[in-house]
């Protein structure tokens, strides 16, 4: 060491270097979980201005997009590159992923799905819109239902995803299952949706499931999604039971007959669970109102309920509004 070198400075240098090395590793370790990194980030040298640069890039992209009359095959590639670079700068730019994917999705669906896949690789970015958009593009532009189902399943797992995402997923699964010729599987999808995610064990007889079904039945008018699900359940059940009853008459094989009988019973059990405490038409399996003598959906005669035994008025509450008789 040079005699002119101050010892105190060297000692201080060693101490601070050790301290800073320790702290650097500690902070880097903590930042691993708390901070944003794109999975395919190109490690741009942005000197800490990448977020601001992403905003500038966004404004420039809006201007560029505005200058294009149409998105063609040629400029779709240009736009895809720009959206890719923009999301390298800010991997959490959800709007850029969504708008970009929809922008180029028509001309270059694979590039738009690559952009959305990149978004899904960012662990901190939890938006149902991104996998939903991917599922939508996979179905409508690529006509790839199984790929769309994968995306929609990701979207449906997000806590803030709206009900129509679940319904979209069921419709996609229905399209896939329709090839298997198993309507009970499709029915189960709607039952699961209606019961709010209760599994098939619940349908097999868990006591809580019936309550869930009954409570939804009461809110059916308020929740169009649940109402839609009930319509599907009734329609599918009605079709399955009618078809199986018809097949039972012609079927000679005892095993096949047993299978048909079991399936009818299974569907009836599902209906009992879903419509627990509700009166349903025995032909179309849809609920009917107090006092109805015929089903308003198919004209079938139904067992009336909620009628005052004294004056035959429809009881609307705990007591008859005409004679004050206590309702049963």
């Amino acid at each position, binding site marked *: 060491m040079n005699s002119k070198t101050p010892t105190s400075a*060297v000692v201080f240098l060693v101490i*601070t270097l050790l301290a800073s090395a320790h702290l650097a590793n500690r902070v880097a370790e903590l930042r691993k979980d708390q901070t944003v990194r794109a999975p395919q980030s190109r490690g741009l*040298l*942005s000197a800490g201005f990448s977020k601001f640069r992403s905003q500038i890039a*966004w404004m420039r992209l809006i201007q560029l997009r505005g200058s294009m009359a149409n998105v063609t095959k040629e400029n779709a590639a240009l736009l895809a590159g720009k959206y890719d670079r923009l999301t390298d700068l800010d991997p959490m730019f959800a709007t850029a992923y969504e708008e970009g994917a929809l922008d180029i999705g028509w001309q270059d669906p694979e590039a738009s799905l690559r952009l959305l896949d990149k978004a899904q690789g960012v662990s901190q970015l939890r938006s149902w819109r991104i996998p939903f958009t991917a599922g939508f593009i996979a179905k409508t532009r690529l006509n790839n239902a199984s790929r769309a189902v994968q995306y929609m399943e990701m979207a449906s797992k997000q806590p803030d995803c709206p009900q129509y995402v679940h319904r979209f997923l069921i419709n996609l699964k229905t399209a896939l299952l329709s090839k298997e010729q198993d309507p009970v599987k499709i029915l189960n999808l709607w039952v699961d949706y209606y019961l709010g995610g209760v599994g098939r064990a619940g349908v097999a007889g868990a006591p809580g499931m019936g309550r869930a079904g009954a409570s939804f039945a009461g809110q059916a008018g308020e929740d169009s999604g649940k109402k839609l699900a009930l319509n599907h359940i009734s329609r599918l059940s009605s079709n399955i039971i009618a078809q199986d009853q018809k097949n039972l008459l012609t079927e000679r094989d005892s095993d096949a007959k047993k299978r048909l009988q079991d399936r009818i019973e299974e569907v009836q059990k599902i209906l009992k669970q879903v419509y627990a405490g509700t009166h349903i038409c025995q032909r179309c399996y849809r609920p009917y109102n107090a006092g109805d003598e015929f089903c308003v959906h198919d004209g079938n005669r139904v067992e009336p309920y909620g009628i005052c035994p004294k004056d035959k008025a429809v009881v609307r509450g705990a007591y008859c509004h005409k004679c004050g008789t206590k309702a049963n």
Partner: protein
Amino acid sequence: MNDIMTICKNTYTRVLRSRSLYVLLAAVLILVAAVHLYTDLTAGRQKELMYDAGAALLTVVGLFTALVVTFDIARDLRERVVMTLLSKPLGRGHYLLGKFLGIAWLVTVNMVILTAGILWILHWEQGAWRMDFIKLACAMWGAMIMVTALGVMFASFLGELPAVVLTAAVFAAGHATESLYRAGTLPGHFLFSVLPGFWLPDFKLEFGNGLPISWAIIILSVLYTLAYSGVLLSLAGIFFHKRDLA
């Protein structure tokens, strides 16, 4: 200690006399507030842009203020003020420390003024206090203290222009040392540990996207910047000690 504080105070008051500083602060606040008009240009993202612009401009002002130290030391050397000072019973290390503390104090004052101004503008635009901006500013303050120490180190053995260019270059390159850490190799890890990691106190991307970053990580990153500033000042002391001032 008194000598250090005297140099610190003189450095601070001398730079504070410059009117361009006030113009710079006012211009930054006006620029941030003007983002309010960018509704159409950003397709409705002007709130996000305002936050990001505020953070970016706070960095720019902090950086410019920190770079003053390189000019100040170079001027002292050019005008031979250093000779006069060092002819008194004052160590070279004390002189550098005084300069560093003077500019670090100026950086602190500037950043406090700007942070308060930007916070108020963000509140005016968004209708809520963005308290996470304080966390961001704290971490950024640490980074700027590190830049000041870096400026002192380069100014201790280089002329003003190379010192400014190198300080800015190291600040930019210091944001890329993350790749060394992520490489997972032993040499990479060693380099990451000894090189200045300006990405460690940089949370603009996280706060700009509304991610919750704990105070613990902010405090640790500020401690890192202070410790690394100590490394740079020690090096500055060694280089300046060996420098021929005649």
